[in-house]
């Protein structure tokens, strides 16, 4: 178990009431997709922060905004994203593109989904590393090979991958090489987008191991975005549950799995089969809403077994019911008052 960071806690990144929409027009029909619709969160230094959600919950868009990759048709409609760099608060969305590029890979790095397909198929691994370092850390260029070999050794990856082409390596090895590439400059924050999806069971375990090792060795912060709750259970310190572009619940991992408060979280966890159990599991009826016409009020209400009248009209505010445990649900926080205070 990775120990959560000891106090005092500094936030590496902070997102405040972020709203990011896609506006497109095809065949004279305009669509506004509210991919991120009011998300606030804080990422603490040194932790493993999990973002859980199914397809269509807005997590990919959230990642894009965190990286400052905001190009039309995506636009920021409200809110902010701040990083703590060298004791200063940097608003990444206020930076120019070249400044943002400087931040990428050295402050924030990104392991994209389907990483095994990211490597250039006609370049040897060694050359891919060289190109990367030359582009992002020119001061290392003279000793590139030493740095790379050293890093791979530290991570337990065999040196001989350097002389290979991507297609010589297995899918899992390619994934790990891509992870090594993304983290070789010791970024403070690593964003991993579905790092284990489409990988074999044993390889998934290896990738998780690798991410743990990297985080421990570089003391960086890891943000893990995946719909696979098994990965969160095994790796994350805290988990944020997203649904239809909004936050439903956030808590430390153990609490979230043992006492989930939001009905969506409950179903998400209870519907997963466990090895050694054949008792009937129930699944949530219906499917996540399209983000261009989301339901009014609480976005989960059409599928929620406990939906009340108020759920259909009023968006439940995100409230901290216990230290470190936030929930947005009228069932947990009845609309007419309780001691919990609203957290933005």
């Amino acid at each position, binding site marked *: 178990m990775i120990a959560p960071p000891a106090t005092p806690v500094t936030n590496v990144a902070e997102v405040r009431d972020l709203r990011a929409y896609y506006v*497109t027009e*095809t*065949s*004279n*029909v305009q*669509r506004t997709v509210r991919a991120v619709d009011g998300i606030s969160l804080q990422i603490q230094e040194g932790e493993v922060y999990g973002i859980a959600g199914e397809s269509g919950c807005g997590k990919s868009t959230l990642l894009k905004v965190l990286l400052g990759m905001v190009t039309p048709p995506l636009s920021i409609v409200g809110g902010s994203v701040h990083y703590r760099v060298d004791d200063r608060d940097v608003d990444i969305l206020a930076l120019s593109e070249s400044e943002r590029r400087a931040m990428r890979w050295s402050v924030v790095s990104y392991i994209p989904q389907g990483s095994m397909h990211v490597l250039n198929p006609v370049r040897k691994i060694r050359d891919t590393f060289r190109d990367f370092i030359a582009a992002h850390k020119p001061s290392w260029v003279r000793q590139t090979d030493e740095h790379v070999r050293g890093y791979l050794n530290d991570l337990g990856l065999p040196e001989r991958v350097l002389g290979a082409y991507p297609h010589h390596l297995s899918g899992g090895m390619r994934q790990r090489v891509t992870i090594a590439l993304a983290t070789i400059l010791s970024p403070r924050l690593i964003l991993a987008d579905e790092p284990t999806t489409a990988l074999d069971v044993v390889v998934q375990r290896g990738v998780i191991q690798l991410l743990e090792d990297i985080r421990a060795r570089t003391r960086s912060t890891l943000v893990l975005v995946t719909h696979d709750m098994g990965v969160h259970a095994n790796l994350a310190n805290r988990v944020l549950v997203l649904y239809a572009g909004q936050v439903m619940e956030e808590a430390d991992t153990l609490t979230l799995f043992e006492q989930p408060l939001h009905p969506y979280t409950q179903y998400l966890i209870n519907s997963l089969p466990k090895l050694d159990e054949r008792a009937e599991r129930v699944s949530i009826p219906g499917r996540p809403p*399209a983000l*261009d*016409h989301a339901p009014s009020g609480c976005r989960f209400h059409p599928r929620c077994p406990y939906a009340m009248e108020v759920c259909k009209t009023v968006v439940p505010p995100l409230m901290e019911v216990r230290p470190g445990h936030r929930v947005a649900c009228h069932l947990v926080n009845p609309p007419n008052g309780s001691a919990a205070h609203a957290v933005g």
Partner: protein
Amino acid sequence: MAIKFASASLGVTRDLLRSSPAFRTGGVILAILLVLGALSFVAPYGQGDRRVVPVDRPPSLQYIFGTTSLGQDVFWLTTYAIRNSLVIAGLAVIISRSIGVLMGSFAGYLGGGLDRTLSGFTDTFIVIPRLPLLILISFMIRGALNIVWLGVLLGLLDWAWPSKRYRSQVLTLREEEFTKTATFAGMGTLKIILREHLPFLIPFLLADAVSGFLYAIGMEVTLSVLGLSDLGSPTIGTMIYWAGYYQALLARRFWWLGAPIITSVLLVVSMYLISISLGRYLDPRTRLKAMAARSAA
């Protein structure tokens, strides 16, 4: 079934007229040409009539396009030329692309020995030098070569290259999962090609049809200018032939040469504009995007 097709076509046409300037321009030009071609049915003179009007008159109010050295009204001659050239090219395209799509699709879908045989046969056809062959044939059957036969002949010689391209497209489509689903739904080969694969081939087919059309027009002009086609029937090519025979260029009777040349240019341009706008509209990718937009609205 025919009604459904007709109403669907009408809907498509209306959509395109609204959204695509290329289609509007091309459509207008083609419409004008078609109207001219249709006028040939009410022409005051027959196709082969000569010496019905004074010779070599430049364009005037009475003879809008002027007259020829043979005593023909260039305007009405042009309407016949448009009609006949369209018939030739239309026949050629329909025949060549039907054979091409079926041959290519079957070869691509069924593979194996059949594919090898069909492909070998196709390759033989590709290698045939078409112009010399056409010259030879028309030389041999000079008397019997009329508009319809010319169109059929051109069609029978132009299916080979297109069939290779359809084959390669079907090779890809065959590997799609939905082809397997269709197989397990009990659909036979022909049905799969027509219902599952053809919709994806249509954008390509349209562009290809235009190229086939233009090839046929070009071939007809070439043969006619060489004096090898049915010189008694007015076509774009034969008009040019006769104008050249009577040295219209030297004698500065530009109207006689100008009419067929301008007509052919307008025909090519309008067909091109229509095919690219129609192709873009029917492209499965844009259709899917439009579907997604509509279903979300």
